């Protein structure tokens, strides 16, 4: 009986020849991550153990959530993490001006590699499954303990196989794939389980699409969301790292808890309606839904491909007079690239605001908080009640193309309505 790639990665790191779903293991971790919200919680727990960090080269501390500091308390939290990084000589601490949104930055820098186990004190750590890593979110205490020990415990998840075929139509992207899947299986459809994306359709997805899909695996309750390593992955990594890495593939006789088939060519632009990511509807089926704000960015959709989609729709047009459009490149490198390609000028000329990288509005931190009764179409990952501001505000999750089209139309709209 074979193993899935998730099981193989876990087995190797636990020093076992084989693992099975449900088994509790202790596994070595290759890379750890915390941010300005979770780092200050992990640090006092780490300090209680009274050991040095297990490896200062294998920890990333990224100030990105309420950064640049939104208020005095946030500044104090950022300071706690900065001082810890200096004291322990953490190699991958990235300061404002160089930093980006953690889950966009780490792959871009080549710090997360295929076959690795990566834990992060942030639920969207599952993003790195896109490069064939086992990556999952933990809390501050788990992270604090692992910074000292270099390992952690896992229950081996069973795996749901998501077989992708075909290619995405124009203006349909990774966001539509993952929202469609969450709509099918629900916000607890993969609870405690691994999602493995496979099939001939994978080759037709860009790395940006894969990052978006893996990123929102947690929104189905999944432990991780993993892709096989192919030519596109290797090409992506070639420019970013010279470190060796190990490629794992699922055995043909691996056991799956469930199999789901998605034909990418049949997908359409969708949104997740308030207040759960599973409330997925086709944009074409919606009544008129007026919006007050559009956010394009975040660890889900802040990559250059996302900004490209938005720019193609926004360039030469005007943001609707009733809409505040907020565009947030995921990293400084993406910001610079968007500037070189002319996107930033196009966004500003259209009447959008462009921000430095930050998680800000996604979790209702700052940079686009909603008032009571306001509606936002957003390329972020959660639309829970009160997520982006007032408890009586509404968030509609969508792709960059749909968010851009909606910003122009003043209502939730399909790209083809703008481009027609």
């Amino acid at each position, binding site marked *: 009986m074979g193993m899935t790639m998730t099981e193989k990665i876990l087995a190797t790191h636990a020093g076992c020849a084989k693992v099975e779903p449900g088994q509790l293991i202790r596994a070595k971790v290759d890379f750890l991550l915390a941010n300005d919200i979770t780092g200050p919680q992990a640090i006092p*727990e780490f300090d209680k153990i009274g050991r040095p960090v297990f490896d200062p080269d294998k920890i990333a501390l990224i100030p990105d*959530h309420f950064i640049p500091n939104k208020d005095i308390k946030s500044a104090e939290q950022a300071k706690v993490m900065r001082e810890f990084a200096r004291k322990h000589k953490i190699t991958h601490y990235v300061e404002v001006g160089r930093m980006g949104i953690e889950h966009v930055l780490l792959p871009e820098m080549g710090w997360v590699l295929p076959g690795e186990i990566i834990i992060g004190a942030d639920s969207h750590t599952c993003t790195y499954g896109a490069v064939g890593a086992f990556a999952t979110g933990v*809390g*501050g205490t788990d992270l604090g303990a692992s910074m000292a020990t270099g390992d952690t415990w896992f229950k081996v998840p069973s795996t749901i196989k998501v077989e992708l075929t075909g290619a995405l139509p124009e203006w349909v992207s990774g966001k539509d794939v993952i929202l469609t899947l969450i709509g099918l299986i629900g916000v607890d459809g993969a609870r405690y389980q691994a999602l493995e994306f496979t099939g001939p359709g994978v080759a037709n997805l860009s790395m940006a699409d894969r990052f978006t899909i893996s990123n929102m695996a947690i929104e189905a*309750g999944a432990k991780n969301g993993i892709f096989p390593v192919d030519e596109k992955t290797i090409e992506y990594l070639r420019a970013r790292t010279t470190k060796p890495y190990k490629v794992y593939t699922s055995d043909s006789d691996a056991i799956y808890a469930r199999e789901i088939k998605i034909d990418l060519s049949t997908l359409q632009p969708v949104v997740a309606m308030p207040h759960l990511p599973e409330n997925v509807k086709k944009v074409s089926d919606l009544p008129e839904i007026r919006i007050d704000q559009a956010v394009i960015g975040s660890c889900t959709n802040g990559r250059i491909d996302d900004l490209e989609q938005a720019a193609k729709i926004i360039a030469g047009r005007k943001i609707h007079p009733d809409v505040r459009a907020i565009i947030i490149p995921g990293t400084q490198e993406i910001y610079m690239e968007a500037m070189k390609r002319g996107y930033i000028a196009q966004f500003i000329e259209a009447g959008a605001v462009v921000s430095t990288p930050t998680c800000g509005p996604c979790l209702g931190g700052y940079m686009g908080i909603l008032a009571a009764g306001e509606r936002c179409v957003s390329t972020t990952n*959660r639309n829970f009640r009160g*997520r982006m501001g007032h408890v009586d505000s509404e968030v509609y999750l969508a792709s960059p193309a749909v968010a851009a089209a909606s910003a122009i139309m003043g209502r939730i709209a399909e790209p083809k309505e703008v481009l027609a």
Partner: protein
Amino acid sequence: MKFTGKVWRYGDNIDTDVIIPARYLNTSNPQELALHCMEDIDKSFVSGVKTGDIMVADNNFGCGSSREHAPVAIKASGITCVIAANFARIFYRNAINIGLPLLEVGEDVAKIKAGDTLSVDLETGEIVNTTTSERIQAQPLPGFIQDIARAGGLINYVKGSAQ
């Protein structure tokens, strides 16, 4: 450990953003966090909760963000134990790690209503609803996780295992 307490009852998919909204995450002080616990779905919770009370919910409790502030806020508010049909996985780890006991009871959670009084035995997983006299058997925690719980959380467990 045994607890007796009054039930605060919630539904499916209680996410960490409603347990503790992100606007309060500029602190990790447990007492400050507890002042805002559940406020976006239940304004009566903070003013009404008493030390020893028990929180009960349906499916997928604690879904969403990895913020440990969520179980910390619940624990600091005085709740001694959370019972649900099932939990989201990061919340489950975080609660165990910080020493907030959890019990999974599946469909039997329907036998518990708001305001009921429960008597809970964490060792055996037996829950007695003293309001209705019904008995519910929770799934026992896996042995390894019981060790963490017995140590009072992950940090003590790790410190102990190094000695």
